[in-house]
C-alpha cells in the first residue's frame, strides 16, 4: 500500500543545473506535504513544506509545486550544488500525527 510514491530511485544532475524530484500520492485526505533530505548515518532534515491550500512554496534555491488534481508534487532545486547530493524523501500527512514517507530519490549532483 504505497500512499506516497517516488518513482525515480535515483537522479543525476550537473552542478548548476536544475534538479526536479517528483512525488505522487494516492490519499486525497493528505493536506500537508513535506520534503526532507537525508545524508548517510544521519536523520532526515526538513527542507520545505506546502499546505494543500497553496500550489507553490519557495525558500531560497528550493521550490515545491503542488498539483492537487493530479495528486502530484515536485521539488525544484536551482542551482544544484554538490552538497545537495543526498536522498530526498517526500512525506504527507492529513492530521499532523501520522506522516507517510515515500521511498526516496537519491540525488547525485556532479561537479
Amino acid at each position, binding site marked *: 500500500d504505497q500512499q506516497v510514491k517516488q518513482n525515480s530511485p535515483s537522479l543525476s544532475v550537473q552542478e548548476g543545473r536544475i534538479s526536479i524530484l517528483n512525488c505522487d500520492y494516492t490519499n486525497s485526505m493528505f493536506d500537508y506535504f513535506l520534503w526532507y533530505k537525508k545524508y548517510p548515518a544521519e536523520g532526515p532534515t526538513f527542507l520545505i*513544506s506546502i499546505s494543500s491550500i497553496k500550489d507553490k512554496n519557495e525558500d531560497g534555491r528550493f521550490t515545491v509545486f503542488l498539483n492537487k488534481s493530479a495528486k502530484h508534487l515536485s521539488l525544484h532545486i536551482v542551482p544544484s550544488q554538490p552538497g545537495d547530493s543526498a536522498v530526498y524523501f517526500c512525506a504527507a500527512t492529513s492530521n*499532523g500525527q501520522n506522516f507517510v514517507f515515500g521511498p526516496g530519490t537519491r540525488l547525485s549532483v556532479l561537479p
Partner: protein
Amino acid sequence: EPEVTQTPSHQVTQMGQEVILRCVPISNHLYFYWYRQILGQKVEFLVSFYNNEISEKSEIFDDQFSVERPDGSNFTLKIRSTKLEDSAMYFCASRRETGVYEQYFGPGTRLTVT
C-alpha cells in the same frame, strides 16, 4: 541551534531481549514521534505522542512496543521482546505546535538483533 538527540547510536541485542531506545526532543516541542527505517527501505511511522499519551500508532506498533516520556525531557521507545525483523534504524522526531508540521529528527539508533 537546538537539536534532537538519541542514545545509543548503535545497540546490539539478542533475540527475545528487551531494549530501550532513548531520545531527548527539542525542549519547547510538544509532539513526539518514533519512526524506523529498515535497511534500504523507506522511513515508516511507528507512533506519535502528545500531551503524555499516544495520539496515533501504526500497524507496526504492536503490543511489543511502548513509549514513555518519564521525566518531561526524555522520550523512550521500548521493545519488550526483540525479533530479528526489528533490526533497523530508529529515528525520534519532534515538532513544535499544532499547525506547524515540520519535524526535527534525531540522528537515529541502529538496532541490530542477533
